[in-house]
């Protein structure tokens, strides 16, 4: 019974944690994409540089989300 409760709590924590971190990462990448689009619309000749910088920043934001996914995975396979 106690084992089951711990498992239940771990799964719940994993699911909720992954969900919340995905909200954060989604907001971050959305903000990033909107700013990059605005910037390249204002200055189309710099769009190549902006795209590269955007991809790097997106990868870094994604990395943070992936960290939380790893934590969630560790909880889920506990």
């Amino acid at each position, binding site marked *: 019974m106690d084992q089951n409760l711990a498992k239940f709590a771990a799964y719940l924590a994993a699911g909720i944690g992954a969900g919340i971190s995905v909200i954060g990462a989604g907001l971050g990448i959305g903000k990033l994409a909107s700013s990059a689009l605005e910037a390249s619309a204002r200055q189309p000749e710099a769009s190549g540089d902006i795209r*590269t910088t955007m*991809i*790097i920043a997106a*990868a*870094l934001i*994604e*990395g943070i989300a*992936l*960290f939380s*996914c*790893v934590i969630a995975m560790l909880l889920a*396979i506990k």
Partner: protein
Amino acid sequence: MEGVLVNQGESGNIHSEATHNSHSSEISPQQVFPTLLGTLGEHRELTFFHYHIIDLPVIIYDKEYGFDIYSNIDKMKEGGKYTFSETHKIVKVSNPNETPTLDLSVTSLVCFQWLAMIILLVAFFRVGRRYKKDPLKPPKGLQNLLETIFIFVRDDIVLPNISDRKAALRLLPYFVTLFVFILLMNLFGLIPGGHTATGALGTTAGLALTALFVINGTAIRQIGFKNWLHHLLGGAPWYLFFIMVPIEIISMFTKPFALTVRLFANMTAGHVILLSLVGLIFYLKTIVMAAVVVPFSIFMYALELLVAFLQAFIFTILTAVFTGLAIGEHGEHSEHSAH
């Protein structure tokens, strides 16, 4: 597709004997997803759909028994030292809870990694020989492809991010290899019957380990050991070292760790989505689902193709960015001015 799949997950509700040797067993709806996801893991044999191609050697090192090499899993069981547990792990016969110290087996992922290496070596050596023979001859065939990749990596990845041009050109071969190697391994997963070697943490961790050495090695070589140590302060005054040094050391290892997890998660996630979509047909046991699943999985496949290129690009450019950051602006002035 069923039957040949060896489930390596934790579920343990499929017995190893049943799935390992019989190629025509039925799989119940509940077992569809665990079985399909099991195909993502490492296998101890090479298969092409139903067709069994070759058994892969099992190489085990243990403190107690020493090195053991078996030509396949059945030989290992006959050997009497090790056996398969219910969760598809190799365990000792004498103590079923104990795994051997090191499992150095050649698995399917290792095979595909070797395949990528062989293709790279052959392609680059062939092209390289042509350049040596006559550098001014117009490129043709494979040369065009590799030259395009090479120029792309040089002009879009390495040179803009590493300010010191000499160091950048010295590191260029590493970055080109990294890009093409990761790209090839990613693309292998999209070929029917192929496996994504980058979908295993071990592979990506190995790649990130080289990145760790390159980042810090280049920094030490370019700016000197003393300045590299100084960088650990992160530009803060010296009396803050007890806060800054641990943070900088952690961040030194976080970067490769993030590279590891990013590549692994991106390559695995796409495959999991594809397999889950296809699994829906077998789970619901209706052909109607195919009308929904097939277009959507083709879309996912195209997305996977994009991700395969994008992740190779991201891994390479992030390594370049981190190397550039580690060298810093030290090309001209070596004294640490206030930031």
